[in-house]
């Protein structure tokens, strides 16, 4: 069921994963990664551990190019209007705390 071949995306030079990638990687229902993110006991700092990218507002060309890459990788839920990107390092901490599979 799980997809161990999930490849992190490159966002401003950082390896990141989306919530959809995490759900898919764990073979889990949509929302599982977000639940783990919401309830994380590990402190996650925006700008360092995760980034929030709005999908429905005009943005920087570099972000547009990233979003294209993310959509091509099928890493965005169609109903999402904002993207949460977790750095690989932050996901490793989250996975350990929430019993998720490491990348």
């Amino acid at each position, binding site marked *: 069921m799980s997809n161990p071949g999930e490849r992190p995306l490159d966002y401003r030079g950082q390896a990141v994963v989306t919530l959809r990638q995490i759900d898919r990687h764990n073979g889990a229902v949509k*929302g599982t990664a977000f639940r783990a993110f*919401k309830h994380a006991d590990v402190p996650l700092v925006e700008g360092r551990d995760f980034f929030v990218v709005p999908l429905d507002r005009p943005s920087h060309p570099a972000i547009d190019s990233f979003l294209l890459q993310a959509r091509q990788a099928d890493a965005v*839920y169609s109903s*999402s*209007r904002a993207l*949460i990107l977790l750095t690989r390092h932050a996901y490793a901490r989250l996975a350990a705390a929430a019993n998720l599979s490491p990348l």
Partner: protein
Amino acid sequence: MITLLEWLRPWEPSLPVFLACVLAAGLYVVGMMRGARPGFWPALSYFLGVGLIYVVTQTHYDYYSQYLFAAHRLQHLVLHHLGPFLIALAMPTAVLAAGLPASWRTLPQGVMAPFFRVLGSIYRVLQQPFIAGFLFVGLVYFWLTPDIHFDAMLSLDLYWFMNWTMAVDGLLFWWLIFERGGRGITPRLSPGRRIMVLAAIMPPQIVLGAYITFSGQNLFEIYDVCGRAFPIDPMLDQQIGGLITWIPAAMMSVIAAVIVLAFRLDQEERAEDSRTETTLERA
């Protein structure tokens, strides 16, 4: 395809909610086994109320509540309106008391007595008609303030606090409305005052529901972060949620008013029967 077992598994397990529901059902069953006879309809109403509260909080339904605004509104309709409404309609005090150990049926004496006296005073203040009505509507407004709603849906502790406040306030309010039988510590309002309270809480709920339904902007952005449970236009989701806040919530007041009137008529009929019997006995 989701299996029955997956449906029954809570999305956010909560031991306090689980225990409260099991205790509520268990105590009622023990009360009936010890001889309390609530009747079929009150028992059905009670178990349905407790069961609905359990279903919307401790099954996979809660998943939809967290990823769909309309499902969240339905969850709160059950927690604040329908569930407590059905429980209070059953007036389960006597059955629950029968289920308790005999030594617990009277208010505690000794060192705990002052604590329970204070609790009783707070309860009586909260059950003043204006305060009860204000709290009932105020909580709906409070938790639907977009920034507060965002935080409540993002924090597990706040999420459960929100749900508990809704359920407890619902119980307080509907208990005040349907209070009958032997006098307890709940203020006994006349049918007219009960109907006035029910009428007073309707317009603010209608205004809020209509505002959400007709708002041109996406008010509750928390549901956009991860995306909704299934592909649905955010505005459509918001409109359905607004309609749930508006129509069924307000309709509950109308239904409750009819029930209050029915209780009144029933009371009058019984008094009339009793008078007739006394007259016949004398004759």
